[in-house]
């Protein structure tokens, strides 16, 4: 460290433009604004066919018969396939548990389950042919909640479970159960001066990415297939696809096509296997694109949940204990349910220090739509409930809700209920202080000299109020999200980095299999390479399976893990380049042998800033390339009885303040402002960081006031599979979102960064609910909140 005011060490990358910490612009930005960026639904191939999936019209039924004759006879149809046409003994897939049939066999377990697939020369021909397939169903009673799932005579959703959770679940219709038990809740309860209890309901949210599930499968001459696909994890797809096709993994080539958003909804397979099957069957390229209706059936959703909480505190506002029972509805297939249970339970008390905890989380098998990953992943549902509890507790204690949270806020060193110490900064109280200190939006901002601007009032241009009956409310919330895959998962990424001279300039090429889904990974990958290798020109190679796995674009992990892998590979490349330089030029200057050398601005420089050589001269005609896997610190599974264990890698914290105005007569809500403060460790690209925080915040807003997949409890059928009936926030529904970014380094992570994408989705929802409660005085124990909940009509 410089101690005399004279810098003795130049920060790496300081001489190279476009490195980390700068708001460099997206490398794919121009293609995306000109319409040239090729999304998976834009793929095209000469002679290609269109695939269509026939889905079940009922939620739970035995399949008596399937008649495909008429569909097959339709002019323009090339293939119709059912379960009987699957080529190998492997007929199921799944992220963790292979319980999902590629095509239904004997039984359908949820509304919209794939039953048959068709390939035809026009998408409409394929649709009409699929409609001609006759499926005779014998309907079964539907299981839709915990009571029906665990009833003594309940039909088992999966009769022959042999997965590794079946041994510890209390009922075969429970996917996974995780208790977290710490301290002595009974004794702690005796010390409580105040106890509050609540029963909370979280609705089923859809990821609603705009780019529909789609891809193009092209049969290859060697009997393999090349799939161009929008996904979150190429290698996870590959591992599930290849065995069903009966092909070795090297004959299933996968290239990432443009991805129109993901948010967890592309962790599971959708049309991947179906397109490959049809391509291999017909010998022609096959494209499948879901429409929005089908997309609602074609991917898993966020688990709806019932959460029962009990919080106790002493009169001075110190938490004594938390008891919770969290029931997540996993729907018909497991998907990511076990890991969602792990998150909901281990993060179930939130970012607070509590010694005595008793939590149980389970995920059910039901006939409802399958649920799995969505941004926030189990931590979202818990945050909605524990933050409502904190407000309830504050009211009962007569303590300011922010003050109560700050008194109990975890800090670095605090133990989670799992017994794991939080070993990096945990600025929970500080984030609350910051978000509270942000200026408040002016009152009655809808007033103008020409009367009320109804566009800024609840109800908007429906012109339902000019301010009468409108009440403002303010609410706060804070949350904790784990970063990276937890519970002992081997969570690695692979990066291949190459450096060579192209056109007289040193160029780095970064090749990973990371799925760019919009988050801006490609932007920061180039920044990392510039910082580490001191070059300006960085080429991001398209993501494919010709390089090792990058892991999933989920769990806020890619900048950490694939970013870490790139940093590591760059460091190895740098060593090789310097070695090359020492060999070629070492005799010209003693610093080659003795000084610490850096790559900056296209040159080799000493740590004192002296230029030794131009990279162009060092490299000459040689290319230096490294491919290497990189891992974050290992985690361990939670104990199945106590939930104890060092299960997590890193945490991400965000706090929100919501300001809402409610038309209390009509129950209409206008969110005026949703301020956020978040610790990001280190903002590699500040512009992208703010964009992630605002986007995550808005998805939290959506599930607070509008977004819910409605499933008929009598039939388990989805009632609103369209953007007409499933509403996501428009630009009119979305308020200004001022963001205060805190950067407290996590010394265990590359550059001190934190995964950032999910935390803002957690606290946004409870903050909005708290603000609506403040405006209306209503208890509001469910989300999303609808007008009838605010007017007393329901």
């Amino acid at each position, binding site marked *: 460290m410089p101690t005399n005011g004279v810098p003795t060490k130049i920060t790496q990358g300081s001489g190279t433009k476009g490195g980390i910490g700068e708001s460099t612009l997206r490398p794919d*930005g121009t293609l995306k604004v000109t319409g040239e960026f090729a999304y998976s639904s834009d793929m095209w191939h000469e002679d290609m066919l269109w695939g269509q999936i026939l889905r079940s019209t009922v939620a739970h039924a035995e399949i008596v018969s399937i008649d495909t004759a008429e569909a097959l006879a339709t002019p323009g149809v090339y293939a119709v396939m059912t379960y009987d046409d699957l080529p190998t003994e492997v007929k199921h897939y799944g992220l963790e548990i292979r319980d999902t049939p590629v095509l239904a066999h004997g039984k359908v377990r949820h509304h919209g389950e794939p039953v048959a697939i068709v390939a035809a020369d026009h998408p409409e021909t394929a649709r009409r042919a699929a409609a001609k397939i006759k499926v005779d169903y014998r309907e079964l009673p539907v299981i839709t909640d915990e009571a029906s799932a665990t009833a003594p005579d309940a039909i088992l959703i999966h009769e022959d479970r042999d997965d590794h959770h079946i041994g510890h679940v209390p009922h075969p219709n429970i996917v996974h159960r995780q208790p977290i038990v710490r301290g002595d809740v009974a004794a702690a309860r005796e010390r409580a001066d105040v106890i509050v209890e609540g029963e909370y309901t979280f609705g089923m949210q859809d990821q609603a990415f*705009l780019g529909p599930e789609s891809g193009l499968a092209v049969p290859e001459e060697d009997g393999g297939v090349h799939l161009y696909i929008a996904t979150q994890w190429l290698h996870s797809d590959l591992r599930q696809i290849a065995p069903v096709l009966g092909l070795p993994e090297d004959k299933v080539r996968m290239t990432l096509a443009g991805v129109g958003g993901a948010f967890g909804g592309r962790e599971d397979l959708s049309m991947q296997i179906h397109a490959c099957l049809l391509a291999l069957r017909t010998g022609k390229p096959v494209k499948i694109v879901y429409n*929005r209706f089908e997309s609602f059936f074609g991917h898993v959703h966020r688990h709806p949940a019932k959460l029962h909480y009990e919080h106790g505190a002493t009169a001075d506002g110190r938490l004594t204990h938390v008891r919770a029972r969290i029931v997540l509805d996993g729907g018909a297939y497991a998907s990511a349910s076990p890991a969602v249970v792990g998150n909901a339970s281990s993060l179930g008390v939130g970012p607070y220090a509590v010694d005595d905890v008793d939590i149980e989380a389970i995920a059910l098998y039901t006939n409802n739509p399958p649920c799995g990953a969505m941004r926030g992943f189990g931590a979202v549902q818990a945050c909605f409930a524990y933050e409502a509890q904190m407000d309830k507790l504050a009211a009962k204690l007569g303590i300011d809700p922010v003050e109560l949270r700050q008194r109990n806020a975890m800090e670095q060193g605090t133990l989670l209920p799992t017994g794991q110490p939080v070993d990096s900064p945990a600025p929970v109280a500080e984030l609350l202080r910051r978000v509270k200190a942000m200026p408040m939006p002016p009152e009655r901002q809808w007033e103008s000299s020409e009367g009320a601007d109804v566009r800024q009032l609840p109800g908007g241009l429906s012109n339902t109020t000019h301010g009468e009956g409108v009440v403002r409310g303010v609410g706060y919330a804070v949350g904790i999200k784990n970063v990276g895959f937890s519970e002992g998962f081997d969570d690695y990424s692979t990066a291949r980095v190459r450096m060579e001279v192209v056109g007289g300039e040193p160029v780095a090429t970064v090749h990973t299999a990371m799925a760019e889904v919009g988050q801006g990974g490609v932007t920061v990958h180039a920044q990392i390479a510039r910082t580490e290798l001191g070059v300006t020109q960085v080429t991001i190679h398209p993501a494919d399976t010709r390089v090792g796995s990058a892991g999933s674009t989920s769990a806020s992990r890619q900048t950490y893990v694939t970013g870490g892998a790139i940093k590591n590979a760059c460091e190895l490349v740098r060593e090789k380049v310097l070695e090359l330089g020492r060999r070629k030029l070492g005799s010209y200057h003693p610093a080659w042998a003795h000084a610490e050398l850096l790559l900056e601005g296209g040159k080799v420089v000493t740590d004192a800033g002296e230029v030794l050589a131009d990279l162009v001269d060092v490299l000459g005609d040689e290319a230096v390339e490294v491919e290497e896997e990189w891992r974050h610190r290992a985690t361990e599974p939670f104990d199945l009885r106590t939930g104890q264990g060092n299960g997590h890698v890193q945490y991400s914290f965000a706090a929100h303040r919501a300001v809402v105005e409610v038309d209390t007569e009509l129950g209409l809500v206008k969110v005026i402002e949703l301020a956020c403060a978040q610790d990001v460790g280190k903002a590699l690209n500040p*512009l992208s960081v703010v964009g992630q925080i605002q986007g995550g915040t808005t998805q939290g807003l959506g599930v607070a006031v509008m977004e819910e997949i409605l499933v008929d409890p009598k039939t388990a059928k989805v009632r609103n599979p*369209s953007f007409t009936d499933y509403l*996501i926030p428009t630009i009119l529904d*979305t308020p200004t979102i001022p963001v205060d970014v805190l950067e407290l380094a996590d010394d265990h992570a590359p550059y001190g960064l934190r995964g950032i994408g999910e935390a803002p989705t957690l606290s946004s929802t409870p903050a909005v609910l708290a603000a609506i409660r403040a405006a209306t005085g209503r208890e509001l124990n469910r989300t999303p909140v609808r007008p009838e909940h605010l007017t007393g009509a329901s």
Partner: protein
Amino acid sequence: MRVNFTVNGRPQQADDVWEGESLLYVLRERLGLPGSKNACEQGECGSCTVRLDGVPVCSCLVAAGQAEGREVVTVEGLADHARQRACGTGGTCGTSLDEAKGWTADGTDSQTGEGAELSPVQQAFIDAGAVQCGFCTPGLLVAADEMLERNPNPSDADIREALSGNLCRCTGYEKIMDAVRLAAARQSEGV
């Protein structure tokens, strides 16, 4: 059936169009212009927004036959459209008919599209960070450009109203607001 219409200043003809095909389908699948996106096929998301005789429409809701004889501007033609507007009717830098006929979406020679000539609103979307996954971007650009044509100095409420038919799931709209404000400011400065 055969459909004749003008796309981005260039006469186009599509053959063997099935009567049920939308303008969006014909643009994407028959004319090789996939810039307009299909995200809901029922006029809720705005991803397929194009201008039909100047008016922004959801091209998924326009039967291809309805476009017969009319003028369509898509995201691929937005830069040219903006340039012609900037030059005005009596200008000296207009695009000749021959140039218009020779129009192509490729203004680039690199992987990243650098060097492409962009309209002010396109550039502003990049500069302001308004593009994440980008699937909503083409529709938003066409809608925003049309609003700025009508209303060069929009208030925030004006921008929100004009773009309320375009869903974005990634950005939370804040950077989109920034981008449109930036485009308006640059436009008024004549940049």
